[in-house]
């Protein structure tokens, strides 16, 4: 949607504000979640059962099998591949999350901080589904993709992770940091006809 973005540098976050249709409440609200820590958890060879047991006992999480998210308290584990999970914790930073996971998993899993590597962007609003239909090549119909479901996919040539946070539905994306400008541009283009509100992307 070139006229919406013509003046915004392709290398910058699209500044916060309302884009596209102006009448009424925005059809889509997109917010960058700032206080969130991320870590990649890769299960050591033959360690899936151990990790599942630890997750259940020490974190209170039933380790998801497949592309699903499972949460306990502020911590969510999302399956991103065989034996691979993205840990998401709100309200803390990367090092405490890493320490917490290291304390729990010990040598059973390889951990890497991804808090700076990926940006979590949340999408909600009455026209979210129609907006996402233009972006996500995954069937997000409520009968197919439910709260807790996740998918590692490609949106507007950007590799990312999407998961459904609640039944509203609210969706979350984990987007590699350097791809966020391109992601926001595609998002604003797709949501423009419904009116889209960007929050937490800075003032440009």
């Amino acid at each position, binding site marked *: 949607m070139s006229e919406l973005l013509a003046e915004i540098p392709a290398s910058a976050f699209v500044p916060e504000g309302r884009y596209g249709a102006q009448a009424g409440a925005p059809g889509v609200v997109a917010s960058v979640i700032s206080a969130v820590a991320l870590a990649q958890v890769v299960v050591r060879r033959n360690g899936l059962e151990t990790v599942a047991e630890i997750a259940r006992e020490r974190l209170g999480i039933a380790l998801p099998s497949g592309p699903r998210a499972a949460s306990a308290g502020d911590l969510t584990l999302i399956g991103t591949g065989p034996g691979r999970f993205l840990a998401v914790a709100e309200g803390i930073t990367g090092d405490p999350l890493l320490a917490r996971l290291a304390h729990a998993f010990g040598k059973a899993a*390889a951990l890497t901080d991804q808090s700076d590597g990926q940006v979590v962007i949340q999408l909600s609003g009455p026209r979210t589904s129609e907006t996402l239909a*233009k972006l996500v090549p995954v069937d997000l119909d409520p009968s197919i993709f439910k709260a807790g479901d996740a998918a590692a996919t490609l949106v507007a040539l950007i590799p990312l992770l999407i998961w459904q946070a609640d039944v509203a539905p609210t969706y979350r994306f984990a987007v590699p940091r350097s791809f966020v400008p391109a992601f926001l541009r595609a998002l604003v283009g797709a949501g423009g006809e419904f009116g889209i509100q960007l929050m937490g992307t800075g003032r440009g």
Partner: protein
Amino acid sequence: MSRLSSGGLIDRAKPLSFTFDGKPYTGLAGDTLASALLANDVRLVGRSFKYHRPRGIFSAGSEEPNALVELRTGARREPNTRATMAELYEGLEATSQNRWPSLSFDLLSANQWLSPFLGAGFYYKTFMWPAALWEKLYEPAIRRAAGLGRAAEEADPDSYEKAFAFCDVLVIGGGPSGLLAALTAGRAGARVILADEDVILGGRLNSERTPIDDAPPAEFLARACGELAALPNVRVMPRTTVFGIYDGGTYGALERVGDHLPVPAPFQPRQRYWKIIAKRAVLCAGAFDRPIVFGGNDRPGVMSAQALRTYAVRYAVSPGANAVVFANNDHAWSAAFDAADVGVKITAIIDVRAAPPAPLEQAAKTRDIRVIAGGEVIATSGKELSSLTVRSGSGTETIATQVLGISGGATPNLALTSYFGGRPRYDATLAAFVPDAVPPGLSVAGAAAGRFSLDACFATGVEQGAAAASAAGFTATPAPQPKTVDTPTSLSAFWHVQGSKGLAFVDFQNDVSAKDIAVAYKEGFRAVELLKRYTTLGMATDQGKSSNMAGLAIMAELTGQGIGETGSTMFRPPFAPVALGALAGHHRDKDFRPTRPTPTHDWARKQGAVFVETGLWLRAQYFPKPGETDWLKTVTREVKAVRSSVGLIDVSTFGKIDLQGSDVGVFLDRVYINTFSTLAVGKARYGVMLREDGLVMDDGTTARLADDHYVMTTTTANAAKVYQHLEFCLQVLWPELDVQLASISEQWAQIAIAGPKSREVLAKVVDAPLDVSNTGLPFMGVVEGQVIGGVKARIFRLSFSGELGYEIAVPARQGEALTRALMAAGEPFGITPYGTEALGVMRIEKGHVSGNELTGQTSARDLGLGKMASMKKDYIGRVMAARPAFADPDRPSFIGFKPVDRAQRLRAGAHFLLLGAAAVMENDEGYMSSVAYSPSLGHWIGLGFLKGGRARIGQKVRAYDPVRGGDIEVEVCDPGFVDPEGERLRV
């Protein structure tokens, strides 16, 4: 005006003004441009492709071969728009195309008198001599004379987008079969998408008057549409053409979101390209009414019999004062009756059959329509049709008429069924090709399957809708079928009137006549695919939707083979033209592909950096200071600053891969040519990895942070490829290894500082107790700690520039803060930010290989890195790298060059020749891969590959660059131009 006084699916309360060739007209909401033109008695609409013959409107749908116009003006000008598909809107501007000076008087129509010379394959045969004139004269002249509309010259101001949809059952076409298929599957609870290229659902039901459930079809249609709209699991997509079928049940479709508006609605796209993923699909695309081939069958006023019906019934337009129908089938009679019943004056029906069905003759009689049985039209006349000549048992006679509705029978619209290689099968009773093998998951119903009667359309729609729903896992109960009469469909195959007068067209769009088919036959181009290429039959925007059948039939007559044996050409997507803009969607201009800024992008921008695209990344190329107008001046300053004091560059774009596990050392030994298992904790090593074929894939440094923890860097260009390669090795080759990978490219910003003062700068930003002294952090060492007050960091003592250097990694969000801190700490030393240009110059001065050398065609030995390869272990690419050709001393290998005349400039891409050797391929000795002006040496230097390599140091060769006119002598030298012993690295 030819608008009938009542009826039609048009809104008489909503007049719309439009212009055609600048002349104002008025149509009604619900009109297409074609129906509005006919309502205004405009029957001459275009000029044909080759002969510039006057042409009118042939069809009322997407198969239109003739009525192609330029729609809109300026940047939105759109050539070759089918007037039959363009919905009328207020202020529409259309222009006829391919004519000069005007539509009614086109000078190039003289081409038709040259038709004896412009027949099939004329451009292969004429203009052959002198050959030199082809490019300069013949081709441009032919291109000017032939052709269709003009594309807009400005960029398209509208936007386009892509979208995805998923369903259990996709129904393609919303006519009687499609409606029933969608209703049946929808009632069963399946998620259904019903796509139709028309504005409204109904297909033929909008044009026919056959009662359904004892009421006009509109009543049934309203009920069906109402029910579909009420089903939450059914999505109706009007104005949407399914144009292709792809793997995994993927269907390409184009939705014309804003084509019916003067400009698209705010923030809406002009068109939307859908990828529909369907478990099952039912093709209900109907059939095309095909023409009969006879002399003068292209005259404006001649149209398909079914189009005549559509204009009369749906648009309430009589396309002329009176009309005659010429056909070989019952369906055309129904068309004539419907048209007559809504007020079109049908004077006669000419049927090639000696004895058409008696009930039809009776029905004609009651409508006062004359029947000429066993008749054939042998000529037409008038610039626009004014009369025709018919030959029958009772002799020939001329009949005055403005419209001639012709029909050679129905051709199933089965293009989509052949996109997976399915070849249609000839059904002699229908005189038509019908679907045979279909793409997986697709079935066919109704007229597209050759089931032409309305009753059969309903029945097969229900049947295929139910079958598709159950195949998708739903229990479908066949719904009671609407009651209708079994519309008559009999026909007698008939293609071509023998002995008619004038050019008899098979393909209107490409001006292919019956004679051209005969020429193709005579010259041996008899196979259908050859026939198509030689004569252009069935090419261009309409892809022969109306014309193919008659062409094949005429060839079959000539060869004496049956039509089935002659076969049909294969259809390929797209079914109808798709704008490239729609395929691109969001990805145009700045959004052609993602732009990835580095963590210090904003900072660099504020420093006035000039940026360069490296892959998707945007990197600082150089940092001009006020007054520096020449990039070389800037780069020279940056290089000198690094070599004499200290400089800073963002190297975050390098790929960074985290490897953890007890077998990482073993793993790295297998992917690198050199050994990493012996690397001490706290040390880094340069490594080279090969592809399986023995050629170099990538290089970089890998550091060992702990016994079971390594960090690898890759080149910017190969970051994703190397990660994928490592994943492949672990998942497929050695799943038994305890190695866990994670990409940390985005997590860490990496800032390099280099130059004799870099340690002093670094020391100022590290937090205690981190020791970065020469003993605390020796060359090729790595330490972890904190910088700038509590920010975790990994500091690598590495150098690409050849100077004392460090790379400091911090979490990406801290990259800018670290940069600012380093700049502040380096201020007393005049710390200078530098970009990729200076980086490149310094690596060339050092003789390091980079992207220009890692071309995927060079081995480790070619690159002078052969000695790194371990002889004690196996690694990927080892066996293939040992092929004899790689060891051939004549194979060009890596070496340095400087111009003999130091004032000369070197050019990358120049090829090497022995002095005095002729500049021919046989004498080629290698090529220059990288060059730079060396500020340290004060002249140009180069790297490249030369036969014999190092053995030739001191020799002179010729660097020949015919592309840019370079031809100079260069001296072969060691590639280490600056500090070849590497003393500066260890200070």
